[in-house]
């Protein structure tokens, strides 16, 4: 799609806002609709649209597969790690209340934030990686 000037210019302007909206959905999941899963999907869509318009090589240059592999496993490890941390803090697995020794509600907030972040990172990386795999095969 290299020759479509209008699509390129509009995408260039739109992608940062798509990514910003994804971060908003991620961080605002406690207060409104949304959360890690939706945020991850929107984040991935931003990168995929970039790849569709500017070509798969530039997407891979911006987001190498090595980083995506770290994201795919890192998000899940972050989620499971919060569970382990709550074990060490003296609670049961994934019981976030014990993460803050003074106020269990604060512990719950912290746990939910980290867990949703883990979900978001894994979902965004998996979706982008699946797209890159398909598109790269077609490209060759």
């Amino acid at each position, binding site marked *: 799609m290299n020759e479509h000037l209008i699509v390129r210019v509009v995408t260039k302007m739109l992608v940062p806002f798509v990514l910003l909206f994804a971060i908003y*959905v991620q961080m605002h*999941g*406690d*207060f*409104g*609709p*949304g*959360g890690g*899963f*939706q945020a991850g*999907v*929107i984040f*991935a*869509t931003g990168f*995929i*649209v970039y790849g*569709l318009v500017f070509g798969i090589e530039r997407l891979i240059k911006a987001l190498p*597969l*090595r980083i995506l*592999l770290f994201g*795919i*496993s890192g*998000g*899940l490890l972050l*989620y*499971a790690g919060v*569970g382990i941390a709550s074990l060490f803090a003296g609670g049961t697995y*994934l019981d*976030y*209340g014990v993460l803050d020794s003074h106020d*269990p*509600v604060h512990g*719950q*907030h912290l*746990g*939910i934030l980290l*867990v*949703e972040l*883990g*979900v978001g990172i*894994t*979902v965004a*990386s*998996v*979706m982008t*990686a*699946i*797209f890159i*795999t*398909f*598109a*790269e*095969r*077609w490209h060759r």
Partner: protein
Amino acid sequence: MEQIIDILLLLLVVAMAIAMARLTNLIAIAILGGVYSLVLASIYVLLDAVDVAFTEAAVGAGITLTLMLAAISLSARRERLRRRPVRNAIAVAACSVVAAGMIYASLEMPHFGDPDAPIHTHVAPRYIEASPEEIGVPNMVTSILASYRGYDTLGETTVIFTAGIAVLALLWRWRRDGR
């Protein structure tokens, strides 16, 4: 008034499904599938399920459409139609039987918003009453998904992780040096 909107949206869903079944242009079918998800998302909003609507819009209309288009670009753009009357008749019969069974089962379901429905009498009252003090998060859906049902969400994330790893292992052309 709300009933008219409901009926219109549901009719739109049916029309879209028929159009998707009759078209042969795969790109048009994929885009119609995205619109189908968007209409479904508006129905979920009418049912006050905003989190579900958000997911349907982001996943069904957003990422599924893009991945479908990527998959179509790997294969053909048009469906090749072959006349197979016996096979088609069997497919229509199977679909009709399953649809009739599901409609029959839905007759037994409690009415929408029925306070005596099993889903409203089991653990839901406990979550609604205790969540503001125990979790303190304004969006109760998030508190249930991430905290009360944390194991479920961990399992779902593991499923997504496995799907991603499986696609990469099958389709990515790994080079010798592991990149």
